[in-house]
């Protein structure tokens, strides 16, 4: 178990990375410009890539370097590039009708983090790891999940919803690097590719939406009810 006996420097680096990516999730939550989301997402992916490399270094998992490179390339460069192209083509630069003001979303996000901290701490206590970085990893993992769901529910531009989904997965990725660095590499690589396919599919679907439903805002998608 890596997290149980970690030297203090490594623990602080891990914590720093985890908190940095949580902050970046908040940047996405607090902004209404699509470009800002994109930059924040790319930065978050780079932070996770660096985290993978550090975990690989301290835990002695050389295969994590490969994961780090792939994460940086795919999630840090390629995905944001694909999404950026979609933004360009759609000519939508920001959320027009806001369901929840950015400031209120930030407050809601803070509550998500507090809830996650409670859950993470309880679980950490019951497995005897309450004083380690495991609690922080659990907290960040759960709160990025919740923030992702928050983004999915208060944002309605097609692109923000994709980014919301990506934040959901980023959370799992980040937590998994710290908690289970030994999880078979095969799966992680496949998940990376999987994500790429997801975004490609979304690209096609957005084209459909625009061409046949005439909008990319989910607020307008209300033909099917009941």
């Amino acid at each position, binding site marked *: *178990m*890596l997290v149980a006996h970690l030297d203090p420097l490594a623990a602080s680096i891990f914590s720093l990375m985890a908190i940095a990516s949580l902050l970046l999730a908040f940047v996405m939550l607090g902004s209404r410009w699509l470009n800002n989301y994109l930059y924040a997402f790319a930065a978050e992916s780079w932070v996770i890539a660096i985290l993978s490399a550090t975990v690989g270094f301290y*835990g002695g998992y050389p295969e994590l370097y490969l994961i780090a490179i792939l994460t940086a390339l795919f999630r840090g460069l390629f995905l944001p590039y694909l999404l950026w192209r979609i933004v360009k083509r759609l000519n939508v630069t920001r959320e027009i009708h806001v369901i929840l003001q950015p400031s209120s979303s930030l407050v809601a996000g803070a509550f998500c983090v507090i809830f996650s901290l409670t*859950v993470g701490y*309880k*679980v950490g206590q*019951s*497995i005897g790891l309450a004083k380690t970085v495991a609690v922080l990893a659990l907290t960040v*993992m*759960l709160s990025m*999940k919740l923030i*992702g*769901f928050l983004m*999915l529910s208060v944002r309605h531009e*097609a692109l923000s*919803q994709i980014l*919301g*989904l990506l934040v*959901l*997965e980023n*959370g*799992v990725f980040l*937590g*998994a690097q710290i*908690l*289970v*660095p*030994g*999880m*078979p590499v095969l*799966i992680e690589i*496949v*998940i990376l590719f*999987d994500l790429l*396919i*997801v975004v490609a*599919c*979304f690209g*096609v*679907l957005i084209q*459909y*939406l625009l061409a*046949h*439903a*005439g909008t990319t805002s*989910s607020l307008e*998608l209300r*033909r*099917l009810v*009941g």
Partner: protein
Amino acid sequence: MVGFLLLIIAIAPAVAVLGCLAVPSRAVAERLNLTSSFLVFAAAVALAVLSSNGPYLFWGDYIIVDRPGAWVTLCTALVYLLASIYSVGYMRLLEGEESRLRYFYALFSGFALTVLVSTVMNNAGLYWIAIELTTLVSTFLVGFERAAESVEAAWKYIIIVSAGISLALLGTVLFYWSGSFALGPVYDMTWATLQQTAPKMNPALVSLAFLLVLIGYGTKVGLAPMHTWLPDAHSESPAPVSAMLSGALLNGAMLGIVRYLAVADAASIGSFSRSVLVALGVVSLLVGALFIVRQDGIKRLMAYSSVEHMGVIAIGFGFGGIFGVAGALYHMLNHSLNKSLMFFGAGNAMRAFGTKEIAGIRDVWGRYPVQGTLWLAGAVAITGAPPFGLFLSELIILRGGVEAHYGWAVGAMLVLLIVIFVGFLNHFREMYFEPPEPAEGQLPALSNWCVAPMWLALAPLLLLGLWWPSSMWHHFSAIAHTLAGGSP
């Protein structure tokens, strides 16, 4: 032998996908898809029979053929066969899509392939990936007709299901983590390993992980309140795709829940996890009942009936014991047969009357005596009335509930099933016996391709309701035993 059958199941649809993409001809695509579905079905039957000597492992434990998996493979293959026959007739009725039909068949075989693959995955992580792939392929099938409604349904489908399934990924990671306390940081996360390690896992952590997995795969299964994508996707996709989504995909995702339930049992949080599953099942029945009673769309009616049936299956597995598990497995097969029949009938009615609204479909019996009779028999069957298979399976599940001391759930299930019986058949009364609107022209005739699969689905449904082979009972009790942690 088992390996050979597996190869057929994997290669036949893959060849069909490539063939449909390579040859620009509708006729070739139709035949390829039909042949592949027939081969897959034959292989799946043999696999289900042979699985009783298993489990068999392949490719370094990544692939498993065991009884529950092979059973779901059989259900999937059955729906794939019926839907392939049906789609030959149905897809020709779509106007102006002639040139795109081969892409439809390519996607269709690809969808069947991903569901079939998910049923034999032995690694929890790979199972997750297979389920995610089913979403990606089927999204394009849901949106195939490209009407605004179809695209809306496809968008909701991919967003809701991907978000849900990402919770299952988190649950999977947490399961891996709880196993790593006993097994060290690197191990193969097979179902058997998880089940054996489960007694050493921390109950709090396993409970959290199980809840996440249940909500995640529950979204895909369509358990309420995560079912919101289901009525849209089922009602807006072409009818053969609706049948595949309902009869094949939902069972495939249910298999994951069942396997994790066995792990939760072994971790001795069984009573908690079972109660949650039963509660979700009852909520699904409730939502299904409410929306069935007040429904206007014919395919949405069928979709809510799927929510209801997944609720019944979830309740069956939640009750557990030999009766609960046997009833639920039996119900899976019946659901696959019956829901295919119902969606085929709904597709026919939609094409014939040119509307999706129940109010526009009148005097079905007078106009289409044969297919009308088949569809009505299916409607009686799906509400759980004798003499069809679903009556038996629901009865067995109820008996399982009595044995497992879930009195409240049994009571709720009974009441809701009666509500659904009345509500569902009331819609059919309107469609069959209310006088038609005057001055409707000649309605189009339906091809044999559209009616034959209805016969093929109804016959076994009736047979299974009247006669339950004893070998099947042995098979089910063996599955119940395996899931309870015993060696097969």
